[in-house]
């Protein structure tokens, strides 16, 4: 595939904590093509943020990538003598990120303007004037009202939605090819969420961006993505085009997740719930991570790990007993 931008291959990330080794990400593989929006969904603690940190080379101490690879346009960002230098060069330029917590990602003591200009001055060597021009252009690009006034304001003077726009503007400073957005709308109200999602869709179209969108909201994925990766317990459960996965989810977890989501457009008398809770990643089960909660679980599921396998073109599932159309 010529236009594959990013390839995550057998990624494994572990945190070496006092409580034990946290197996945060296990054997995760997926790719992102040019112009594509890929959703990464899963519940809290399933490994979404850690996966994105690994892609950006930002896994925090006491964690590290313990196996697998991340390749940008075919070139490894993990292994080899130039990997460390390469990822530094790519990060913030070709790949940039909007982090989960909009409060902590902006420095409260600097103005919006100085934080925006800092990026282009450092990464692209812009002069003060050039950087200012670019910052105003970016604020306009993300539909901020009164860019000149915003330029002089501090993060605390902006609402959550506006701060998120600033972070997106900042991430777009150096015209990246891939934008990783970690729960960009989770902290926002739904009417503001709708504004931000629309903005992301417009930017994607106008700038030809590829996007990796991390979220736990299946509705957000349905509205914005081309493909979706469902994560559970640090592993990928299912990968496929959104229409297929939402219409005929094959993994029991994806299926359960869709069934247990109450919907605005439907009334059901009782929600189908998935009993139990996600596994402890310090001592993850040797078999399928979903086995303890799965209705289709067999002896094999408990003793043997199902690997992600292709069931039809473009659709992968990690399950010994996947649901099939027939």
């Amino acid at each position: 595939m010529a236009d594959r931008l990013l390839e995550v291959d057998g990624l494994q990330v572990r945190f070496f904590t006092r409580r034990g080794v946290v197996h945060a990400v296990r054997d995760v593989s997926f790719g992102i093509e040019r112009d594509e929006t890929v959703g990464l969904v899963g519940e809290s603690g399933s490994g979404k943020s850690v996966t994105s940190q690994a892609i950006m080379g930002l896994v925090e101490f006491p964690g590290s990538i313990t196996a697998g690879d991340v390749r940008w346009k075919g070139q490894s960002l993990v292994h080899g003598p130039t990997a460390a230098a390469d990822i530094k060069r790519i990060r913030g330029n070709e790949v940039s990120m909007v982090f989960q917590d909009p409060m902590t990602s902006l420095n409260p003591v600097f103005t919006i303007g100085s934080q925006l200009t800092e990026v282009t001055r450092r990464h692209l060597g812009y002069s003060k004037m050039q950087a200012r021009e670019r910052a105003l252009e970016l604020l306009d690009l993300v539909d901020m009202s009164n860019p000149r006034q915003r330029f002089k304001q501090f993060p605390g003077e902006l609402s959550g939605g506006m701060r998120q726009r600033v972070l997106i503007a900042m991430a777009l400073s150096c015209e990246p090819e891939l934008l990783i957005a970690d729960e960009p709308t989770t902290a926002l109200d739904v009417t503001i969420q709708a504004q931000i999602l629309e903005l992301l869709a417009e930017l994607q179209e106008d700038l030809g961006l590829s996007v990796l969108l991390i979220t736990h909201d299946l509705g957000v994925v349905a509205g914005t993505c081309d493909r979706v990766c469902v994560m559970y317990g640090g592993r990928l459960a299912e990968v496929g085009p959104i229409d297929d996965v939402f219409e005929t989810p094959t993994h029991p977890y994806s299926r359960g997740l869709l069934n247990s989501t109450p919907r605005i457009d439907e009334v059901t008398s009782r929600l189908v719930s998935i009993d139990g809770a996600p596994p402890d990643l310090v001592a993850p089960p040797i078999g399928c991570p979903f086995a303890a909660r799965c209705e289709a679980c067999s002896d094999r599921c408990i003793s043997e790990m199902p690997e992600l396998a292709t069931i039809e073109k473009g659709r992968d599932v990690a399950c010994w007993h996947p649901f099939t159309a027939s």
Partner: protein
Amino acid sequence: MDHLTIHFPVGRSRLLGRQQQVVHAVEDVSFSINRGETLGLAGESGSGKTTTGRAILRRIDPKRGTIRFRGRDITQSSGQALRHLRRHMQLVFQDPYASLNPRMNVLDLVAEPLIVHGIYNSTDDAREYVLELLEQCGLSADTADRFPHAFSGGQRQRIGIARAIGLRPEFIVADEPVSALDVSIRAQVVNLLQDLQDELGITYLFIAHDLSVVRHISNRVAIMYAGQIVEIADRDTIYERPLHPYTEALLSSIPVPNPQLQRDRRRIVLSGEIPDTLEPPSGCRFASRCPLVEERCHVEMPSLSPRSETHDAACWVR
């Protein structure tokens, strides 16, 4: 047979902020809840949902207005009468992490209100009943001696619910009880709340910003915007035939987990943000963002007026 009515025309529940400014958190809100039903109270952050819920439970005093419980005015109740009331009206919190004292084990936590209200003399006396409550909330007996930190979010919320139902309250204000939980766990807790309602006939005020959950659990739904109720109706009317332009926009901005539908849906993306409750506009509070706004909207505040027997809305245009 007595109709549980909470009448709530709170004119200006003003909370004093710093610098003697006034937060018009909730203004002129009226509604009633019938015995055994669930009223969903939805709206965005800061719209005044929690404040309304707390005022009903008499945890904050309204500046104006009355609250009636079972037909009796409780707005001024205090002392013994207020304590007695609290037995019948309980609160379930949003945050299952902050709302449970980490130094008490589950048995103590669930027994505490029972002892405060003199139902039991000691934790030991209460033990058997507490185990029954835990079981009712889907927790096994061995949880009783463990501490909150040993539980997941969903389990902690179950503990909070067990604590709330011990006194057999008639009315529970559930303030975002599932917002902090993951989808797969959320369904478990929603089902539990519904089962308890079926078994015990509890009446709920269910506060949430997630309109999908509200649709699922409520009989009637009230939509708040900037401290006011803009629309209230039976559930299907709100979701299928909303009148207020805010309700309409709010519903259309909620993404549906169905890609085909999501592509074809007409979405109303509102510009701007919620007005400042320190200086609320004199006309309709939604006017600055409303796609249907007319001149009159900026001048005069629309009040909630009946559109059918079960449907009230506050809008000049619709």
